[in-house]
């Protein structure tokens, strides 16, 4: 059976064919374990077939939802792919944190004289911190918006190529929180610089 529009990031593409053909193409012996998708022509046979299969010691029967969870668990934690993705995400957060931290610090340094002036004329520490926090909020908002737009564009491109990318509200929420947390962590150096700023520098 010929197919088109199927993509997989594993090296084995999905193949719709007979069992014999599949075993031959994949070089799998007759007694080796395989997963089969059963699509009954007569749905009425389902319960009887399921009952028979459950009695077989070497057959495991999975419904669609269980199969989905099992597959997700395999790719997320049972294979190296999940760990690789997690590592990439953490690395991205770390690199992003360093870049945001450097950007914030250089923005703060550019305005040290103004901040020292404010401190000299009586600004409270939280008012000075507000300067950094506004920049953090701006960078976080810019990061969230640009990241979301990029994700949507990628989703569309990959969907056109036949690969479904799920961007769930949970994923979006987690990404936003991770971005805000990263920006907050990255602002610590700048906040310390502002806090330690000597107001007397304005008169030197």
């Amino acid at each position, binding site marked *: 059976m010929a197919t088109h529009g199927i993509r997989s990031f594993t090296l084995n593409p999905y193949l719709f064919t007979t069992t014999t053909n599949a075993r031959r193409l994949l070089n799998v012996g007759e007694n080796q374990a395989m997963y089969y998708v059963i699509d009954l022509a007569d749905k009425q046979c389902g319960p009887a077939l399921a009952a028979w299969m459950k009695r077989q010691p070497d057959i495991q029967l999975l419904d669609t939802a269980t199969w989905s969870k099992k597959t997700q668990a395999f790719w997320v934690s049972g294979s190296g792919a999940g760990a690789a993705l997690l590592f990439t995400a953490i690395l991205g957060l770390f690199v992003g944190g360093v870049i945001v931290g450097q950007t914030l610090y250089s923005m703060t340094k550019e305005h040290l*004289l*103004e901040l020292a*002036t*404010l*401190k*000299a*004329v*009586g*600004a*409270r*520490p939280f*008012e000075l911190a507000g300067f950094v926090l506004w920049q953090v909020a701006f960078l976080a908002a810019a990061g969230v918006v640009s990241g979301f737009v990029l994700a949507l564009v990628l989703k569309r491109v990959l969907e056109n190529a036949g690969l479904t990318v799920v961007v769930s509200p949970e994923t979006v929420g987690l990404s936003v929180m991770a971005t805000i947390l990263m920006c907050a962590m990255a602002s610590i150096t700048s906040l310390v610089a502002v806090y330690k700023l*000597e*107001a*007397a520098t*304005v*008169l*030197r």
Partner: protein
Amino acid sequence: MSEKSILIRARGLAKTFRPAAIETPVLRGISIVIRSGELALLMGPSGSGKTTLLCVLSGLLRPSAGEVELCGVPISRLPDCAAAEVRRDKVGFVFQSYNLFPALSALDNVAEVLALKGTPREQARGIATEALARVGLGARLGHRPGELSGGERQRVAIARALAGSPALILGDEPTAALDRHTGMDIVQLIKDQVSERCGVLLVTHDIRLTRFADRVIEIDDGQIVSDGVAVAADETGGGSGG
């Protein structure tokens, strides 16, 4: 009987810096009183301790020894936050390099400092407009510092210092970045603010400013070497207070 009140009272001030474990005494036993109604100049050669003294008197630096009272508050003994509060309420600063916020208009530069005092935004803008009009910049409210001349920038800085109705105006070389004519205008403007409720202390190298001063305090090597009624200098730079 004079209504003049004491704005600064400093006793036995000493300040020693210790960069890399080397002790550098900058102020040595300075006692000084500044009253309202007077414009006092703090003069002396480079490195004599003028700016350090101004920092200590305003609570920007803590003295190593001695005590400073600013408007009756022992500012040298207060924590930084409390000292900042005293400065916010009692002191207006005029800096050598103006220290304006380049992204803000003249109006907002003045209003921003009032906002620090908790003045509502609209009221702050009204007071800032009046202060800028007083220094002759009523028509330049919307201009940013980059669009103003040096003299105009210093006028904005003066308006910023005056807007909060401070008891004391402290200036650090306010004319150093200005030409002679503009510098004299600026000091006259500062002099005009002196009243029974307001005094001025300016650090300067410029001997020509003595003609505006009620008093000249000379400092050298961290000690006051003379303190007395100003004698106007001639235009060639001869003569000084003392």
